[in-house]
């Protein structure tokens, strides 16, 4: 079947099998490999993307279901060469080690901060409770998201330009 999906503001049209999962569509059909494919079972959350402005686990959504809808992936966090404060926070606070869970963590974190700009530690922990990290023990991820909360809305040079 043919589907048209808007991903990060760009329209894509592809012929796919109806059984194709959104995570594989993003990675294999349009080459956006920032979204990771992890557990396959809706548990680990590394495949989290936004669909119509809401975080979803893309291993449990059919690409066909995304047709006509808009998807936002981790590639869209950086804007015009400037990292999102969430990305900068993960760098500043060592919020990743192997990096496998990071795209999903950051997409959920961005959504949380858009809806709750000053979350408590407990609110952050609850927001990422459907996502698994096996490196950090979550401590530094929570600090990274707090860092982003404290540095949102700052001028680009402070919140972090992309390093050359």
């Amino acid at each position, binding site marked *: 079947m043919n589907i048209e999906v808007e991903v990060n503001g760009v329209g894509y049209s592809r012929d796919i099998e109806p059984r194709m999962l959104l995570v594989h569509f993003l990675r294999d059909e349009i080459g956006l490999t920032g979204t990771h494919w992890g557990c396959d079972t809706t548990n680990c959350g590394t495949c989290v993307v936004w669909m119509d402005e809401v975080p979803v686990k893309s291993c449990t*959504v059919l690409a066909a279901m995304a047709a006509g809808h808009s998807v936002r992936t981790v590639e869209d966090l950086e804007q015009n060469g400037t990292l999102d404060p969430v990305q900068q926070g993960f760098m500043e606070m060592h919020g990743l080690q192997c990096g496998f869970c990071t795209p999903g963590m950051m997409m959920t974190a961005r959504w949380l901060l858009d809806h709750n700009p000053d979350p408590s530690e407990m609110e952050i922990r609850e927001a990422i409770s459907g996502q698994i990290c096996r490196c950090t023990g979550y401590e530094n991820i929570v600090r990274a998201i707090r860092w982003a909360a404290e540095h949102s809305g700052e001028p680009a040079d402070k919140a972090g330009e992309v390093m050359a």
Partner: protein
Amino acid sequence: MQVPAPVDYERALSLDHAIELLERYGPDAKIIAGGHSLLPMMKLRLLQPEVLIDLNNVTDLGYIKVESNEMRIGALTRHSELLESPIVSEHFPIISEAERVIADPVVRNRGTVGGSLCQADPSEDLAAVFSALKASVVLRGSKGTRVVPVREFHSGPYSTVIDPGEILTEIRVSLSSPCGSAYKKVERRVGDWAIAAVGVVLRVSNSRADDVGIGLTAVGAEHYCAYEAEEFLVGKELSEETINECARIAAENCNPSADQRGPVDYKRHLVEVLTFRALGKAVARCKGGSQ
């Protein structure tokens, strides 16, 4: 890689269109809403429908409203919407408390209330909640609409009385009955299915239980209900003694199975403790205690 077997996809553009598609494809078609139970089952080949009928674009099935002294929940309402609803948190702490421990926030963004009930998983929290609330569901097919009590909707594990040509469109909960409710769950880790859980709805007059609903999750209770315990408590004074006895009866009459979540006696013990605690909380709420 876990992916579903080959399947065809149809997008329903309205409720009537969805019913028409169900008629056209027959029992080999499945409605997909949130898909957070259906797609995992398809990945495991526990289900292999020939056609998926996507209901997600029938957005007028997503609502929470008050009508005819009932709260009416559209089948496509997401778990997160139920959790955030002021109507729900004002009238039904049992629903809010259950929703807070269903899966995780990202899954709750997608999973639907109607889908959860139709899935009829023995561990489904909302089935016990709506059973305790003595809610009804609205089923619509090409031959018309019928309203079925939730306590008659589930016919066993993963099975319901819904006909192949019907769609669950709405859940109705009376706004007049409860004055206190609560949901208590024990799980192995955050976001997991219940080892056991208990939902309680109480109406009290002159310090006696006037109407009692007790729903049990994951312990093999018929229709997710603790009938004997409910029957015991109706008309009784709500003392620690009667609540204790009610909890004991609920534990005695449920039918849990031993599995990786625990042995039978442990699950029975949980039912007793959780029934006691949920009743205590509901009684406190009846008296105007903390929400």
